């Protein structure tokens, strides 16, 4: 198992956001976490990526315990993520956004950068090339020199993925990547997620778009009010009585 959560609990004040949740993500898989709003999906992401710490339970990544480590350390160890509400660097260009994604692949510090020491030149060139490649992957090279803020939402989501990819994650956490996308863009996203898996990147996905989720995910975990109510292949999840009850009234194939 690449990622293994064991008995995770976390509450905010009186609200039990996650209650004794255990789930695991096999290496190279696409796993989805679904559930109604407020089920604790984003909280789960924040725990795995180091933005929150669990009150109980343990998280293993590549076989090592990682809870308690700050977000930037986990990022450097290969946990990449996107955000439910897109978090771009609005005052920077599209290319620069992705160049920040390459941060952990570079070495140049403040002084070296300020003095433009000769050894930083090849590194800058590499960062530029890597960033460009990530933009090519999501098809945003024609927007490279626009400010991130002016992109439409669909392209912002793609840029966020490109930026996360530039950091060469082992596992990529995608938090509702299809929300705000139109049908064509969602189709493109679907192909992209599959292509990433083929490149060997493990994907953990939170998504409300059920057809996309059922389409790409090999395993689905279902959260409801902070509890894990089901975990298994899509077909089994669709027939799971508790899941159907939790989703009563919603259209599976929407």
């Amino acid at each position: 198992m690449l990622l293994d959560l064991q008995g995770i609990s976390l509450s905010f004040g009186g609200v039990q956001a996650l209650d004794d949740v255990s789930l695991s993500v096999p290496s190279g898989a696409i796993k989805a976490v679904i559930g109604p709003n407020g089920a604790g999906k984003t909280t789960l992401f924040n725990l795995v990526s180091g933005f929150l710490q669990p009150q109980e339970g343990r998280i293993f990544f590549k076989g090592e315990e990682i809870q308690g480590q700050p977000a930037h350390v986990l990022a450097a160890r290969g946990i990449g993520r996107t955000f439910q509400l897109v978090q771009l660097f609005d005052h920077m260009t599209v290319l620069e956004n992705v160049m920040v994604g390459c941060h952990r692949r570079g070495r140049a510090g403040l002084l070296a950068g300020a003095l433009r020491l000769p050894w930083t030149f090849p590194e800058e060139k590499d960062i530029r090339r890597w960033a460009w490649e990530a933009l090519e992957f999501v098809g945003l090279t024609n927007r490279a020199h626009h400010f991130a803020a002016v992109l439409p939402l669909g392209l912002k989501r793609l840029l966020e993925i490109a930026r996360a990819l530039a950091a060469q994650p082992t596992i990529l956490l995608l938090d509702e990547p299809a929300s705000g996308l139109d049908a064509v863009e969602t189709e493109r996203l679907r192909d992209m997620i599959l292509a990433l898996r083929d490149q060997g990147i493990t994907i953990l996905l939170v998504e409300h778009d059920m057809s996309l989720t059922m389409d790409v995910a090999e395993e689905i975990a279902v959260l409801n009010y902070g509890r894990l109510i089901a975990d298994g292949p899509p077909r089994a999840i669709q027939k799971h009585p508790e899941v159907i009850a939790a989703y009563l009234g919603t259209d599976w194939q929407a």
Partner: protein
Amino acid sequence: MGDALGEGFIRRLFNRWTLFAAMAALVAVVLENNYYLSLLNFIGIHAILVVGLNLLMGYGGQISLGHAAFFGLGAYTSGILTASYGVNPWLALIAGLIVCGIAAFLIGVPALKLHGYYLAMATLGFGIIVYIVLNEALPWTGGPSGLSGIPSLSLGGLKLDTPWRLYFLIWLTVWAILLISANLVDSRTGRALRALHDSEAAARSLGVDTARLKLQVFIWSALYASLAGSLYAHTLNFVAPASFGFMFSIKLVTMVVLGGMASIWGSLLGAAVLTVLPELLAVFHDYETIVFGAILMVVMIFLPRGLVRGILDLRELRKYKREGVR
């Protein structure tokens, strides 16, 4: 593609920098009036301070309300070491940098661990403490009446004691500081800094140690202030606490805002405008503060991103309209 564009950028930058140096040199040749030259020298000293503060504020999104204190620490370290102990001015300048670096580290470590505006609070307190110490530590600082007898800097036997000679030293320093700062902004660390200003969470998710980076840039901007302070002490040959009070910290923040947050060249403009303005407005005496405030208000309302950015924005907007983007 990306690389060709990078080369073009360096070429453009190179032209801009040489042009600036040529202009500065030309000014020195044309201007013989000592008053204007010393005014320019003070603009230069302020510009160094403002660029440093802008790296912290405009790019990093952290506010320092005590930058006058770092300026003062640099000035007094240089002043006391040279006037009272006969230390070589250049060594004293380095001592000032070390003192300010340590002070910034000690303030920054606890203040920057917390989110929000703790750095503003901590530096505000620090500024007041330094101001009190400068006033009260009579045996070393000379108290409110100041410290005189600070020798001039000298370069290879040439004493830099006239405005004209100092002009070259100060503006060469300004040139270097602007260049270094522009380099920094466009480097790996500079990008991470701008990134954390826009979204700290996203920056952390990409492996940027934001707490460490904020501390680094805070210390870096304090070093600029110290350098400016040392130059100030050797230019005036006299320092007094009144120059390093809270109002001057606020004035520096105003220079940053007026010139434009996150604008290196704006810093130069902000420093120039707010250094010249009081000189021009001195005739108004009683109304100086009012006119000052009115101009500021107008700029903040109509050009909230500062003079340089504001004008660039207007141009950008026209371009967008022409190209039909958006």
